[in-house]
């Protein structure tokens, strides 16, 4: 983030010479940004602050009156089983999805970067899921898990496949994980591919002469060279998967029970339909703090690794 900003030395900046006063040029620059700032503050910052404000009240979202309750919502939050379950589900889901997506994407990207037939054609195919609407992809897979997979399971006599996994409290998350991985790999493959193309090929030739095998080449050359791409992908995918929503709406609606209710879905359902406006606002604040913490933590750890390698 903001990597380019510390080097702000515009040596030939024209405003330097006539820094004396507010020039016409300065006015123009302010006029360019002020409307945008106002709109951003109105529709982004203000509602975010409002969310924090409501988290200290007992408002249900509809009634005309509400009271301040201090940290009561936050205290209830930590005692609420549904909330706790949604955090456990969301975080374990996001961690698994992040690992799976990154491992698969990197493997496919290496394959696509190898000397293969029709590379551009396959690159186009692997990216295709990224242009498809997440919700609709969820509906398509919903049918697959409900109707196709059980039939296949019956024919092949594989017992655990004969039931619809989306209807199982224990395994519904697997279905959602598969859809998310199927779709999210597209974007990550393309990024890794871009990263792999920055690795100079003579490095491989040199290490090949030294007798390094493919496995060693990957860990000693490829992986360190694409470390920045690894960082970006890990941080972005983790953040996206922590916000998982569309797929769950399309596939399980959060069920069975609340076994696949993600934090976003819980905030949506509880806040709009469950009369828990204030309570879910508190939930959203905690959620926000956690996401920020995770992103910064990841950036720190991964960037440190980049330097070490």
């Amino acid at each position, binding site marked *: 983030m*903001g990597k*380019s*900003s510390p080097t*702000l030395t*515009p040596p*030939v900046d*024209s*405003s330097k010479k006539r820094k004396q006063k507010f020039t*016409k*040029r300065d006015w123009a*620059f302010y006029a*360019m*940004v002020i409307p*945008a700032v106002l709109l*951003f503050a109105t529709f*982004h910052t203000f509602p*975010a602050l*409002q969310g924090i404000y409501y988290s200290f009240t007992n408002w249900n979202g509809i009634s005309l009156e509400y009271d301040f309750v201090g940290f009561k919502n936050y205290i209830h939050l930590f005692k609420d089983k549904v909330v706790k379950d949604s955090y456990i589900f969301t975080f374990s889901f996001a961690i698994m999805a992040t690992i799976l997506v990154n491992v698969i994407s990197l493997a496919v990207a290496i*394959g*696509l970067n190898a*000397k*293969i*037939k029709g590379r551009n054609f396959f*690159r*186009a*195919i*692997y990216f*295709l899921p990224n*242009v*498809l*609407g*997440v*919700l*609709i992809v969820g*509906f*398509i897979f919903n*049918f*697959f898990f409900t*109707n196709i997979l059980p*039939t296949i399971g019956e024919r092949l006599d594989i017992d655990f496949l004969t039931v619809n996994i989306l209807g199982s409290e224990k395994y519904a998350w697997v279905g959602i994980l598969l859809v998310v991985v*199927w779709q999210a790999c*597209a*974007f990550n493959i*393309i*990024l890794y591919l*871009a990263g792999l193309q920055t690795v100079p090929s003579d490095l491989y030739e040199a290490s090949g002469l030294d007798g390094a095998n493919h496995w060693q080449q990957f860990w000693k050359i490829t992986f360190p060279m694409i470390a920045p791409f690894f960082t970006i992908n890990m941080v972005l995918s983790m953040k996206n998967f*922590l*916000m998982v929503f569309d797929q769950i*709406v*399309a596939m399980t609606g959060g069920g069975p029970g609340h076994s696949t209710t993600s934090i*976003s879905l819980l*905030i*949506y359902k509880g*806040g*709009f339909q469950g009369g828990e*406006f204030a309570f879910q*606002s508190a939930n*959203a604040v905690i959620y*926000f703090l956690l*996401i920020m913490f995770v992103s910064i933590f990841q950036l720190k750890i991964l960037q440190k690794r980049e330097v070490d390698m």
Partner: protein
Amino acid sequence: MKQRTNWPVTILIILGSLIILFPLYMSFSIALKNPQELAKSALAFPTVFRWENFTRAIEATNFFNALKNSALITGATLILTILSNSLVAYAVARNMHKKFFKGLYFYFVSALFIPFPIIMLPIVKQTSALGLNNPGGLILLYVVYGMAINIFIYVGYIRSIPVELEEAAIIDGCNTWQVFWKVIFPLLMPINATIGILTCLWAWNDFLLPLIILNDSAHATLPLVQYVFQSEFGTDYNLAFASYLMALAPMVVVYLIAQKWIIGGVVKGSVK
């Protein structure tokens, strides 16, 4: 040194691409059958193409109305985003040595870390109070929310454009606005393409924001219509899949036409 084709890898890549294509094949196969044929086998290649599923889906979901809504919202978002966000980024990029503008830069970019759910509940109250719970409001929100990432990308790009070009234009008598529109904006075309693609994909496929903002079903976008009609589709899967495919088709067509651009654009947008 010419390397030989790596066949084992090629075969693995082909197998992998079958996993990508399978759900799409399944969708076509279901959308082109009638219920009896579907009951026999969902995956067998359809013997007769039942195109009437598509005409039925068009009528049942009022497809063209939703298509119009999606196209209007995406198109307007695209144009307004490119025109406004690049202008703001220009002002920020050229004044990064001033505290105010540097602060603004971090103000916009830090919003990338704020998850939408914290805004979700209040913004619904706010838009309905302001009478913005309609496509116009939705477009406004897309343009405003897009600023966080777009300003980040634009500023990085604009700072790589030499200021000398602008100075020449100033000497020729252009004011700051003219400098932007005549000198800078044309130079931004590659990055405009990137931002445009990312914005289109986002606005077209987004589900959550239309779901909470739009309150008149006549304004529903394509993804929203699929959601709303889910219960009405019931077990008429042929109808449902025809409808899904039609909702996905426009972006796929755009992708097939502008494939190279889109992949390149997405990479540029994220690597910046």
